[in-house]
């Protein structure tokens, strides 16, 4: 559970911002999981052509909110960097009790449903500064950000300088060449107390307040989706827009005791572990990117061109969309797995950049190899689900190879060694 009480020093401010980063990260995963559980292809039963358009819009809505939360996580990392802290991409594995939740609630990976959307709405509604849970020991997201805001106001007026972090470490739309609000992203740098407060206000407004209703808030997106979903389900009982995705899928030891749905099918297990490893690799790169050590501009551009864009788009999302078609268990069942977002809490990058680049590149080439092995196992399966996912799996393998090569070239890692690895994969 987080610390509470008014923020009176840098350490308390960094701790509260770290809590905020963990919250944003958790909701991103929750929203992505729910979005990817939706049916989107006309070949999937239970959804007519007209209703498939609505389901497509729901997935689009949720992914838009998830991108907004990624923006929030980026802004929190900028705030951390500005005051001399480190970016934070860690969190416990799902399900877990964490800050920002009401009593009895957990951060969970759940498929799309009315209950899930109600929880998402409640989380976004709790961005309101005046929002309260029924229990004083449980701080809302709005209360946390308000406390952080008061912390900046207090510390920003002191003689001791607060904003000590390198400005070049922060990420902005201008830095990454993204016009404002394209893809719903508005990243800004934090340079002083005023800009810090503006960023905090932006996070809260995008969650619930809205900018004089110019753009729908995250709350409004979920509310709109939930109302339409309820109306359509009520009018057509045969309407089944959600795949049979198990909640809280997991591959780690002891997961069953935590209330998880253990991924038992061996091929699916390999896919989920590939997802976990990909997700970890992305977080490591983002941590390095937002952390900003002594990278050259070229190295920084390489990290941007892989981790910031497009790793989430070209690896995480396609792999999640593949996994939700794969069986959870070995015995016949409609139940499928989902992206587990499992991480190793001990995972760290060396602060020494050269060894970090080599380590990340090895992880990327390991992903290539794992994807190749997964593909061969899927090819053997001959099941309908295997045939459906194979083209995307092939494309994913190419993508991972391209990422690995791009990283090696950008970080000037000798590729001769790795070319042999690709050729060995071909020959198997």
């Amino acid at each position: 559970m987080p610390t509470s009480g008014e923020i009176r020093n840098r350490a308390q401010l960094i701790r509260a911002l770290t809590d905020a980063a963990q919250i944003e990260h958790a909701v991103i995963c929750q929203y992505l999981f729910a979005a990817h559980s939706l049916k989107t292809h006309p070949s999937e039963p239970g959804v007519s052509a007209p209703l498939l358009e609505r389901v497509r819009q729901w997935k689009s809505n949720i992914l838009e909110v998830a991108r907004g939360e990624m923006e929030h996580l980026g802004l929190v990392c900028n705030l951390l960097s500005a005051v001399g802290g480190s970016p934070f991409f860690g969190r416990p594995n799902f399900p877990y009790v964490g800050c920002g939740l009401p009593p009895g609630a957990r951060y969970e990976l759940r498929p799309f449903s009315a209950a899930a959307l109600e929880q998402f709405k409640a989380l976004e509604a709790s961005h309101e500064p005046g929002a309260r849970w029924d229990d004083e020991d449980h701080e809302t997201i709005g209360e946390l950000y308000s406390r952080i805001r008061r912390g900046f106001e207090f510390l920003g007026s002191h003689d001791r300088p607060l904003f000590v972090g390198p400005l070049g470490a922060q990420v902005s739309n201008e830095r990454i060449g993204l016009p404002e609000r394209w893809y719903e992203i508005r990243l800004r740098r934090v340079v002083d107390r005023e800009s810090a407060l503006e960023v905090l206000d932006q996070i809260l407004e995008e969650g619930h307040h809205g900018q004089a209703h110019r753009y729908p808030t995250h709350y409004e997106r979920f509310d709109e989706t939930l109302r339409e979903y309820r109306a359509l389900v009520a009018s057509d009982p045969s309407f089944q827009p959600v795949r049979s995705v198990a909640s809280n899928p997991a591959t780690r030891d002891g997961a069953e005791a935590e209330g998880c749905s253990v991924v038992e099918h061996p091929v699916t297990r390999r896919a989920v572990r590939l997802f976990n490893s990909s997700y970890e690799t992305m977080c490591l790169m983002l941590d390095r990117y937002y952390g900003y050590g002594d990278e050259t501009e070229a190295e920084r551009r390489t990290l941007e061109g892989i981790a910031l864009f497009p790793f989430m788009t070209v690896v995480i999302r396609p792999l999640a969309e593949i996994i939700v078609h794969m069986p959870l268990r070995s015995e016949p069942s409609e139940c499928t797995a989902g992206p587990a977002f499992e991480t190793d809490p001990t995972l760290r990058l060396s602060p020494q950049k050269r060894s970090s680049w080599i380590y990340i590149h090895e992880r990327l080439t390991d992903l290539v190899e794992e994807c190749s092995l997964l593909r061969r196992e899927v090819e053997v399966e001959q099941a309908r689900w295997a045939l459906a996912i194979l083209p995307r799996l092939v494309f994913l393998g190419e993508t991972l190879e391209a990422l690995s090569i791009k990283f090696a070239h950008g970080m000037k890692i000798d590729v001769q060694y790795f070319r042999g690895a690709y050729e060995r994969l071909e020959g198997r």
Partner: protein
Amino acid sequence: MLDIHFDGWFQCRLATNPDPTDEPRGISGHTFALAGEPDLDRVIRFQDPVAPRSHGPEVGVTVTSVQLDGTELSDHALLGASVDLMDDAKFESRNKLLGDDRGGAGIIHPFRLRISCPTVSLERRDMLDPADPDVPLHRMPPSALTRRGPISPNGFVFDPETVARVTGIADGAAFRAARRSALEADLPEATDATERAALGKRIFELSIDDPNNIRTQFMHVTQTWQFAINGPALVSDKGGAIGLPIDVDQEWPVELWMGAWDADALCGYVQGVLRLPVVALP
């Protein structure tokens, strides 16, 4: 040099950012496979569009001018010839993963251009690595794709003047509004649920009328490529219709721009020139 100028509307059924390149139906971007349509396949079609949409432009790229060293050949056999990109050519940016840091649509790959009419066929393929022409694209280092990349550092260029001059579309917002009105007029006549779903989605998208939105902005954007096609050439010229001996040993320079992206119709405009070196007569 024998300059073969061509232009026309092309179709490309592709997913767009922030969707992944291989997204089959379109979710978060500004392009979609509609109800009743096949999955997005990314193929650039200069002819024979797949599932062409109502009120969209007529797809077909043809030769519009033939010049010999700057002199117009007004009755050349190639005038009106069909221009094709073969081998299911695609824009290969893959969410900016391939190639160097320039933005835009990436390279066109494979690049095998064919110009053909009943009596003439010219065809040539460009090879990214002549020493190893079959290496898969995704294994090429970024630097290997630079020659085939966009000439602008940012890939896309905001060029409303060129788009307006060539296509007649000067106001993208008004163009989209007119298209929406036409579809709204069609909607009451559509009785099939699938057709209505498709029309509804198009109308919804066209109702996004912020002039700064990517859907409107891309109507005024172009991307230009300029390189010399270096692979084996195939020239079939029955009865000497070309009129000149084409040098198949020298590379064939090509320059083309593509743009004026109509996100509703999944079509864009292409204009270019293929420059054919002529064998010097003794």
